[in-house]
């Protein structure tokens, strides 16, 4: 059942169009990640949703309540900010209980609700601390509790984890996800980190230049990107360009292409063919190209190149290979010296062609 509905939303700063025809339907209890590079309009979308910036046209509704014409304080959408935005002159419990105080809830009830929230976000015993005395992770949890206190219709999170240490970030990420599952609130999370989006969201909307490029489950977005931008953004950042279908067919047969992630518009296009694939899907070998072992897999692109650079990633090495005018990243289990000739082998199934 659709809970939050955004229809034909347009927004701009002066002449610059920031949001261009956004349509999004969010179900009750669903968590949607808005993913995109900086400047793609994802934060603007949150601001428009919360009423912090005017929209040109379009409609936002929650259930059958139209909210796009309401002021921010009447929308019942709360935000968790990147900078936490806690009020430093208040204690933890004053921060969390503020929304209830504004709603003129009785003092005893505020206290019960604040204690309940404190235990939900694992901050028991800290209610009388000044928020300035807390660590980053604790502050973000206070911000989350504060936003949840008034039981908002929609919770929006604006890059909530980007100010946290890498280790804390992983914990808080799972905590937020678990909390969302447990309490069942509807939420939108803005992030530029694809891993964060994949882990946390039920569905992901990839934004580019003010438009939703693709909306789908994490698996769909990861395995079946609909545009070159999504493929590139979701980590398939190796790119090869083929000027014609014929030059592509020299490498792989058309039958395997139809099985791979080929787009419908594929066969009758005039622009060069762009092929995207992930570094972990690249098979790298130092064997020469005509070695029989390499021809076990028939449908694969094979490319010759020289090792340009090798970087240790912990579990494996990331090898930069120069192949003509392209540089290709490949994961490999051992370190290779600069200049080593190698053969790269990318199976057709791992290719995204646009």
């Amino acid at each position, binding site marked *: 059942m659709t809970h939050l509905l955004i229809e034909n939303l347009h927004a701009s700063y002066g002449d610059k169009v920031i949001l261009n025809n956004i349509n999004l339907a969010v179900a009750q209890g669903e968590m949607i990640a808005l993913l995109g590079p900086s400047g793609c309009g994802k934060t603007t979308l949150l601001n428009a949703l919360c009423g912090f910036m005017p929209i*040109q*046209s379009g409609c936002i509704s929650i259930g059958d309540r139209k909210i796009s*014409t*309401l*002021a921010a304080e*009447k929308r019942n959408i709360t935000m968790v900010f990147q900078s936490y935005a806690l009020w430093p002159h208040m204690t933890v419990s004053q921060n969390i209980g503020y929304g209830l105080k504004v709603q003129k809830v009785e003092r005893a009830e505020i206290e019960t609700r604040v204690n309940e929230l404190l235990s939900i976000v694992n901050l028991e015993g800290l209610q009388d601390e000044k928020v300035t005395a807390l660590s980053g992770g604790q502050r973000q949890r206070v911000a989350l509790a504060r936003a949840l206190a008034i039981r908002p219709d929609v919770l929006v999170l604006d890059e909530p984890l980007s100010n946290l240490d890498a280790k804390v970030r992983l914990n808080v990420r799972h905590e937020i996800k678990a909390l969302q599952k447990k309490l069942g609130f509807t939420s939108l999370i803005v992030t530029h980190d694809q891993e964060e989006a994949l882990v946390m969201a039920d569905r992901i909307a990839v934004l580019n230049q003010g438009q939703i490029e693709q909306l789908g489950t994490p698996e769909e977005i990861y395995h079946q990107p609909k545009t070159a931008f999504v493929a590139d953004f979701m980590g398939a950042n190796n790119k090869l360009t083929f000027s014609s279908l014929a030059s592509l067919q020299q490498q792989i047969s058309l039958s395997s292409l139809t099985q791979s992630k080929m787009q419908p518009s594929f066969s009758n296009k005039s622009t060069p063919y762009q092929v995207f694939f992930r570094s972990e899907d690249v098979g790298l070998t130092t064997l020469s190209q005509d070695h029989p072992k390499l021809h076990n897999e028939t449908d694969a692109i094979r490319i010759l190149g020289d090792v340009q650079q090798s970087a240790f990633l912990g579990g494996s090495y990331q090898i930069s290979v120069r192949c003509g005018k392209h540089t290709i990243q490949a994961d490999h289990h051992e370190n290779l010296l600069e200049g080593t000739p190698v053969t790269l082998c990318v199976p057709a199934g791992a290719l995204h062609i646009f």
Partner: protein
Amino acid sequence: MRNTMKHQLSLLTLCQSNKIRPSFWIQCVFILLFAFALFGPITNLLIWTVAETWYFPHALPSEWGLNIGTKSLILTVMSQAP
């Protein structure tokens, strides 16, 4: 065209739904009063610099002129100070 109309319509509903009109007028009145209090004395000073004679209760001076000797600011200050 349709978009502009829609936009105007949404602005109209915004005004009505939030009842922001009274606060808008209160703010306007406040700013007008403030501007009067600010520019009144300054206007007064400027008029005096180009006035020769100005008797109460005329709204404006009856004689205009730029005779420095009679109305040099410092001289006025000195002669009127107790």
